[in-house]
């Protein structure tokens, strides 16, 4: 199952930030991780990922680094301080959303409410 485009547009950047939380990743790595970790729910057209990365970079949430030491030049993305703050904020929004959906019976009830 794939999310509607509008819903994906809202959740996609947060998902990318979350994937970068443990450490830096390059484009293809992000695509596969997103697909794998969300069981395909958050899989996006790969052409959508790169504009999303550039937008996050323009907002200062992530920073890119070109690594030319490998077999081919790769661009790695990592979370910035600003990006971490944004991720925390988005996480809370997601938790609130999930809680609200649960209250409406649209999602399974969780143990606690939003922080």
């Amino acid at each position, binding site marked *: 199952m794939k999310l509607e485009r509008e819903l994906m547009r809202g959740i996609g950047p947060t998902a990318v930030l979350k994937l970068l939380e443990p450490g830096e990743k*390059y484009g293809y790595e992000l695509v596969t991780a997103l697909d794998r970790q969300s069981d395909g729910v958050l899989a996006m057209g790969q052409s959508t990922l*790169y504009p999303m990365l550039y937008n996050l970079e323009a907002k200062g949430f992530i920073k890119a680094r070109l690594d030319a030491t490998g077999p081919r030049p*790769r661009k790695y993305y990592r979370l910035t301080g600003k990006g971490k703050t944004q991720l925390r904020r988005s996480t809370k929004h997601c938790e609130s959303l999930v809680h609200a959906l649960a209250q409406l019976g649209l999602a399974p009830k969780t143990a606690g409410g939003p922080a």
Partner: protein
Amino acid sequence: MTTTAEEPTTPSLLQRLRHTPLRHLILGRVSAALDWQRPITSSGLPDPVQSALLTLTRKTRLWRSERVAVATELTAHFTDGLDAGQSPDQLLEAFGPLQPAAKLIRRARKRNRPLWWKTQRVCFWLILSLIIFYLAALLYLLQGEPNPSVDYIAKLNAPAHAVPEADRAWPIYREAFIASNFHQLEIDPLLHEHDNGRLELITMHDPGWPDAVAFLQQHQPLLDALRNAGTKPGLGLIVGLDHDITGPDRLALFGPDRDPPLPAADPATLDTAQRLQANYSIAVLLPHLGDLRKSARLLAVDMRRAVTQEDADRWLANHTALLGFARHAREHEILINDLVAHSILSIAVRETAQTLHHQPAFFRDADLPQLAHQYADLIPNYQNPRLRGESDFMLDTLQRIYDDHGRVTYHGLRFVQGLDGFTTLTPNATANERLVQEAFLVAGLPLASVLMANRDEMQREHQRLMAMMLNDSHEPLWEVLRKASGVDEQIETWQQNHLTRIRYWPLLILMPALDHAARRVKQTTALLDALTVALALEAYQRDHAQYPDTLALLVPRYYPNTPLDHSTGQPLRYQLINDKPLLYGLGLNQQDNQGTLTEQAHSRWPRLPDQGDWILYPPPPPFDHTKHPDNTPLVNF
């Protein structure tokens, strides 16, 4: 990893140069760092993928350095995918359509561009928006046209129309002017040139006096007619533009050599510019003012001749005529007419004062109160400048600048430029010069509409200045002199600021001289006042065989109240010099210099001098440089 069928070719030096940034070239490096196709074509990716990436990167229409970054990253993406075991078709399908991808990438990459580029872009759109707005405003403003609806020339002529036929002097003047070819009549025999080059009316002591007498005798019918005209209550002359003055009026006012008038154009055939020029009250011709002044000089010399002939009746008749000329000049309520009237009045005052000073016995006892009453009666009418005509000029101008909605118009701007002498749109301007000037004028219209006050504001400011001027004009001269002119200060303030100079442009063209001229008009009152005091002194002297010790002794039998110095508001200064009275005010410095007259004051008489006392009676004799070689003050004349 999948390989391509053919190996990439090595680019030529020329191609590498073409893709090398300038800063690399300066450093001696041919880096080809801007060759965005190179990362794709040298990647070894299958042809369909390379082709898709080339298309996608090209369609982003980004800077070459940005395309290099995108191409490098996407090449890595597809290579990683192939390495992960996906086929080219699977990868391309997973990637999605190229056109939207290129659009999204372009949009996102542009957000990463440097601040200077974003600023430049904002400026570009801002300027473009302004240009579009400006052009739209220009189109809107070009629709407006002034629509003059009030005929101010008719208002100007209303007093002349109101004069009954029998009371009109103009028919008499007209006949006399035509009969004597007055316009070409030179009055040189009536003038005497002094050593300093100054021309004044001839006196009986000057060598040319016999010629002057002969001249007067030769033109006796003209003098009789002028005397007759001067007794009429009104002038009754309808003034107008060149094409309005026709027939005998034209012959009388301009002489036989004047070109015939061009017929008035049919209003329906006039373009807007011509329509605005037509019937403009400021362009009204007033040639009769010069004729009245010339007539006054003729009769003034005849008054001197009457003194030599001891003909008091003719002297008095001429004097009455001079006062009539001044009255006729004032019929049209314009400041220039008032100034000419005051100039004629000054001639009458000078003749009366000189005769009274040098030959007091010429006047019969009954003549003194008659003259005193004549002058006293004039003061209420002449003491305040009349500003209605000037106000109408401004309103007439404004109705030719703005449209009915109060907007500045293109034709209105051209009209003001013509008034200001600002434009060089003259017949001598070449077609190209005219075109450039017109272009500037059109282009400047929206700016002018923002910078120039609208019609309501312009009228409001005009009315405010006029009210201030009117308020000043009702105060005595000494009060007006004591404080700075509010109108002058306002005009000065506007002049000093570039924005207000444009904002009130028409006001600044038409208003500045008014206040100064209005003050000059008020000075005549002081002169008339002093002359009535001098006549009272002469009457006192005849009753008591001596002049009074103080002017207070004239009150109330010979003069109604203590005579005032109009320059200070204090009592008028009075001295007896060689047993003859001298009346003066302290002038602008408010110091008593015992009636001292400087050369500067002499040349400006009877106007209030900048320095020294303000001699009001008697008029000073011609300044004699041989007696005052060092420009020493003239005392006790």
